């Protein structure tokens, strides 16, 4: 009796297994397969063992040097993005109205940048920041500041960071806003009776209650910024020089520009592991205090 049921259950989950196999396991295994081989034209493959991984993780080699340059660049970018967008998002969420018709208005305005496709964002900023016809670039240059994102690495970085902040801060703000909305009025009233200052209310009520959504916001923003590709690709193409060549851009150059599939596959796997590891670290740190908590919320 139970045996029959179990067999039917296997049949029912089979489609899921197939989908996962074709969409995740097989492609990943293909990448693993490439990563241990050297490829040439005419579909010739030669076994290379862990050779690509050794080269990749050794900064003194060409491949390793290039990989670590891109990796530090990407880590720096993610760090800057988190340091700006998380506090800014919290600040915006705190400033958003709690009731009245302005709630809907501000929600719509906040959601607008999130609805724009990545490559459109890149194009918008590419035009916007141009010194000759772009509103931003033209104005900045006419204010007497020498600004040229296609020529100056620092300008290119500033432009990409500002663009990302413009594009994604509202995601953090909306998540935080949802967290803030879930705090019952009694908490604020109790805090007033306890004589808490504005800062104390933030530290003791709002921030702890936003903790869970902040975790999600930080993870999402980290993963997205660490994998950023389209916008800098459209805006700077990784330049000037290699100044904005992030890991994903480098990976595409390696795989599709040079057709070094073995090296690119090894890099993909390491890239993937780094994202997983960093997310795990964030998750562990931010849920640390929760570990002993019962699942009961007041």
């Amino acid at each position: 009796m139970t045996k029959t049921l179990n067999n039917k259950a296997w049949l029912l989950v089979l489609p899921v297994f197939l989908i996962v196999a074709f969409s995740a396991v097989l492609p990943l295994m293909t990448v693993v397969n490439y990563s241990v081989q050297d490829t040439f034209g005419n579909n010739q493959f030669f076994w290379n063992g862990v050779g690509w991984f050794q080269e990749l993780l050794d900064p003194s080699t060409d491949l390793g040097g290039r990989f670590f340059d891109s990796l530090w660049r990407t880590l720096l970018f993610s760090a800057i993005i988190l340091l700006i967008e998380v506090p800014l998002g919290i600040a915006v969420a705190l400033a958003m109205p709690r009731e009245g018709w302005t709630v809907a208005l501000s929600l719509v305005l906040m959601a607008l940048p999130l609805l724009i496709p990545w490559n459109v964002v890149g194009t918008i900023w590419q035009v916007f920041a141009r010194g000759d016809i772009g509103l931003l670039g033209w104005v900045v240059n006419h204010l007497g500041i020498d600004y040229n994102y296609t020529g100056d690495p620092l300008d290119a970085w500033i432009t990409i960071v500002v663009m990302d902040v413009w594009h994604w801060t509202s995601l953090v703000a909306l998540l935080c806003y949802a967290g803030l909305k879930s705090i019952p009025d009694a908490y604020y009233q109790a805090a007033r009776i306890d004589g808490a200052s504005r800062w104390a209310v933030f530290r003791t009520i709002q921030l702890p209650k936003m903790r869970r959504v902040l975790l999600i916001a930080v993870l999402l923003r980290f993963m997205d910024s660490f994998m950023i590709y389209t916008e800098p690709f459209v805006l700077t193409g990784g330049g000037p020089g290699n100044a904005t060549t992030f890991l994903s851009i480098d990976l595409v150059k390696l795989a599709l520009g040079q057709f070094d599939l073995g090296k690119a596959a090894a890099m993909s796997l390491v890239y993937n592991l780094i994202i997983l590891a960093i997310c795990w670290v964030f998750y562990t740190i931010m849920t640390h205090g929760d570990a002993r908590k019962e699942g009961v919320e007041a």
Partner: protein
Amino acid sequence: MARITLDHLAHAYKPNPQGPHDYALKEINHVWSQGGAYALLGPSGCGKTTLLNIISGLVRPTRGRILFDDRDVTDLPTEARNIAQVFQFPVVYDTMTVRENLAFPLKNRHVPRDKTAQRVEEIARLLDLTSVLDRKASNLTADMKQKISLGRGLVRPDVAAILFDEPLTVIDPHLKWQLRSTLKEIHRALDITMIYVTHDQTEALTFADKVVVMHDGAVVQTGTPDELFERPAHTFVGHFIGSPGMNILPCQVEGATAFLGSETISLQRRYRTLNHKEQVELGIRPEFVQIQPKGAGLPVRIRRIDDIGRARIARVEMNGRMMAASVPENLSVSGDEASLRLDPRHIHIYADGHLVAGEALGGQAA
């Protein structure tokens, strides 16, 4: 320590209130004396919480003044009043330990550290929280959290009154009794005015020395639990308090006689001539109505008999109206026809809902 005076207080949530129906809280004059245990009783939406929030300063009244002793505090913010409030849902600061929670109001008021520590220990002992002082407040049960909320109020040495807004709502039934007796003990131990908002008459009647009954934004009666039971000033108090509530029957009154349809009941008080436009009603609690075998008294039909623990209550019908009556121990009735005997000492006459004071008849014992 303070006496709290509400002086012509009224509140409307709408701007520009016109008629009385725009007011969530209709004009009220009341004095809460120092050290009293009060209950503010009424159904949901009757304005109890509004009144409480006005006293604590969370809401500014549309009209009128609030005085603490003789000081006008109407315009003072919450933190400047010596009032504490415990809410329906326990509020604790999740990231802090119980000790830090209790110390929080003192820390915000820059009380010296050693004094704070000493005061926290004192209050923790009073509330039986000493054993959990160093645990995170968020891990505790609802009744513990509610004790912490209460403790944050008690810890301030200047607090003159503590307001409770249905504080036992989320507490398990078996812990309700315990927490309520803790409240009573604290009230006895400290000379603090307590105002307890609830819609549960048992809570109100067991907690308070004086109960303020509210209905539809207005105070309908203030009195001891006995007074509310014996002499409800309004038919609302009559049927809201008591289980089952008071029997209210439309009637006509002439002098010292009441007419219930074709039946007459002689009263112990003589009443003024009641206007025909007024709705005249006779009220009597089921405890003072006895059912007896068919014979003398009001003829009724028994519909059902409920056993409510220590007593049995008969639901009877008289001329199409349902009434409740108490059933004597050894009653035996054949069929469903019976009679009611009303204790004339406990009959009250109401006009448009309000108790009419009669004039005692000379020569008859009350």
